[in-house]
């Protein structure tokens, strides 16, 4: 075979290989945490439409959901996420530290510490609130069954744990007392799911427990889906400002050539439409105008931040959730 024919054969092969089976122009994988299914279902459709109109390019966004900690480990282990939208910054820090897939200062790249929306922890109780649960002291009462996921695997559970612990710290003034409080709280927890959506299933569908310590958006969704005749939301006197962050996974987008669309995808979360979608799905939008528009649906609540009370995620993780930390010491399965 002559060189020319050989080159032609290779070119044909490469061309066929490149064309391959029918596929979208661009495909993104968003690895997210448990309760964001509905949010990103709406947002993905809106962004795909926006991107198509702006760039005449079809983009298909796939999402993966699970406990935030588990999702982070999956990315560290090789799951090719173009973007991560997890429950807490520590999980993305882990991806940066252990897999070196993005820079350590990833949180400075987008506004509001890369958290386009916030949420908090509230109580979901059964209609009529038969156990009269009003505040954090009520969830440690004897005979009150509390449903909450495992903070070792769930970001929402870590927020809930810290909200409770922060309340106890503020009320009782010492770590020792707060530790007693949190010990009593987890004695009231009959089962630990691995993620927030699993806990919602436990409480709502399986009829277990008197109160669900829930993401605010998840609680609103449950009431909306199942009706106010079955559940009520109880807003405690104080809770934590939960800031779920987002980031592009640099090494993946550079390898796959998806950086441009991945960055646009996250920036679109801050757009007016992105913020509207977040608010409609009961996430508190960062945009003051959009928040004001939806202010009626978000109860007023005194919120503290993790930085204020726990000195940031790294410290909170090490003290409470690392192997051998406070949670491992106070939680005895089956109690």
């Amino acid at each position, binding site marked *: *075979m002559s060189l020319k024919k050989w080159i032609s*054969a290779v070119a044909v*092969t490469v061309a066929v290989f490149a064309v*391959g*089976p029918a596929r979208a122009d661009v495909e993104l994988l968003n690895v997210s945490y448990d309760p964001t299914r509905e949010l990103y279902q709406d947002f993905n459709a809106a962004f795909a439409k926006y991107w198509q109109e702006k760039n005449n390019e079809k983009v298909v966004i796939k999402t993966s959901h699970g406990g935030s900690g588990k999702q982070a480990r999956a990315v560290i282990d090789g799951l090719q996420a173009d973007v991560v939208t997890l429950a807490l910054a520590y999980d993305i820090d882990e991806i940066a530290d252990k897999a070196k897939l993005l820079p350590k200062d990833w949180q400075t790249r987008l506004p509001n510490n890369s958290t386009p929306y916030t949420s908090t922890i509230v109580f979901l109780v059964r209609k009529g609130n038969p156990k009269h649960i009003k505040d954090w002291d009520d969830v440690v009462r004897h005979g009150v069954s509390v449903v909450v996921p495992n903070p070792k695997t769930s970001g929402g559970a870590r927020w809930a744990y810290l909200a409770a612990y922060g309340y106890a710290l503020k009320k009782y003034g010492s770590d020792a007392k707060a530790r007693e409080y949190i010990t009593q709280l987890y004695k009231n927890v*009959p089962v630990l799911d*691995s993620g927030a959506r699993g806990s919602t299933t436990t409480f709502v569908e399986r009829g277990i427990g008197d109160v669900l310590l829930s993401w605010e958006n998840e609680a609103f969704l449950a009431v909306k889906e199942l009706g106010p005749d079955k559940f009520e939301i109880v807003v405690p006197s104080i809770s934590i400002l939960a800031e779920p962050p987002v980031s592009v996974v640099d090494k993946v987008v550079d390898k796959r050539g998806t950086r441009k669309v991945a960055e646009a995808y996250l920036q679109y979360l801050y757009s007016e439409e992105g913020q509207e979608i977040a608010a409609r799905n009961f996430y508190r939008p960062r945009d003051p105008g959009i928040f004001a528009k939806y202010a009626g649906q978000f109860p007023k609540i005194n919120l503290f931040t993790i930085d204020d009370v726990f000195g940031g995620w790294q410290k909170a993780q090490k003290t409470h959730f690392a192997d051998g930390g406070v949670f491992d010491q106070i939680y005895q399965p089956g109690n």
Partner: protein
Amino acid sequence: MKNGNRKIWITAGLLAGALSQPAWSAGDDEIQQLRQQVEELDQKIRILQRQQEIDKENAAAKAKETPSVAVDNKGFGIKSGDGANELRVNGYLQADSRWYNGNLTPPIGSVAAATGGVDTFLIRRARLQFSGTIGKYFDYWLEPSFDSGEAALQSAYITANLAPEFKVQVGKFKVPFGLERLQSSANNSFVETAFTTGLTPNYEVGAQLLGSLFSGTTDYQLAVINGSALENVNTNGVAGGGNNSGSEDADNNDAKGIAARLFVRPFQVTDIDALKKLGIGFAYLHDNNPVQATAYNNLVLPTTITNVNLGSYRSPGQQTFFAYNGANATAVINTNTTAAYAVGTRDRWSPQANWYYGPFGVLAEYVRSSQDIARNTLSPVATITRNIQSVDNHAWQIVGSWVITGEDEAYGTSYPGSAVVPKHPFDWRNGNWGAFEVVARYDEQDNDPDVYLAPGATTAAQVAALQLANPATAAQQARDIGLGLNWYFNRYVKLQTSYDVTNFSGGGGTLPGALPGTTLILDRPQEKVFFTRLQLAY
């Protein structure tokens, strides 16, 4: 009722009600307690059930992360929890014997080449196979062999398994051409293959596109290959050379071959059971011979070549019954010597078909190989320097098989293990004997008689110097009838026996002539061989 009486009755009623109240209260408390207990029990049951669900979910998630080790009908395997990575280890061993009957004593005066083979036991094939998947989409295959005590790398390739319809394979693989050749040798109906397989290439290094279209009814393969095994078959007596079964890794020239194959099972997705496993195909192989086409076109032949690039052909008894002159020449051949050599392109094509229905099976194929072949000489014919002939050799075979114990017959995949799976594996204590299969075949090869031409020659010496093949040692035709009985002990172990009778014509043997110093050319003596093979493939 008078007012006084009414008051009394009312008072009495109120009193009775007041007195009975503690009794009612006590019952209500009990009910409340029972209700509370029921609710607590209900919660406990719900919690236990939910805990079971969570445990199951966690176990399923853990299973996805935990590698699994399997020893099953696919061999030994290790697989990652998510199935994306896998290693399988297989292998097979063929312990053969050959018994030549009736030609152990050569005919009086016949040349040694026409004699039968040596009765022998041998390790025909001993191979390991490492295969699996890396990263979900990339399959690999590595097959070292120790056939007859010689270590070699039979095949090694990586397949980008993008979709069933579209795969890309790079490495050393079986050239997509011959139907019998493409099935694993562990699955051949007979101990030794037919003449058609002698005209087809075996393993080659290259790249191919392949896939299965239209609900698996249509397989296609398109390969670009070195063509080195085709060209090196006669080099220094390379093991397996001479009948295209060689296994060469290195290329010695820029010429490349192209193979294309299409195989269709048009009734596979219909309700016609009898035709579901009917397959019809066609394969084409174009090989550009390195002996300089331009020089050939200009009718200026080179003075030296590195390879004769010609095949020789073997009988079912694995005896060479046809070889071109100089077939055993050394690697660098001076064209002034007696070696014939290939020039220009070689084209092969093969219509092929198989059909399986219940315990019955038929495989049929035809192979034609067209090749220009030249031979140079200066002496003793000083004025004649070249003999070039267009040579067309062809062969065909038909094999029938019947599993008399009723198991399904099937085309043997490239995977080890038998295509016939006994319903009742061998277990003599319980009266199970496995499966038995009867096989029969007819195959023949017709080589182009032009190989014996010596244009322009006027003397016996000139003829001998110009002929591409020597009719005294190279038979033009061979016809084989084979019968066999195969005993499948189980999926992995079988005993094959077969008996092949091959008749040759058009030369291949000699007798002394009537005049001193002359010989008479005879047909090569009939070959009768009984084979046995005990095979373990796992």
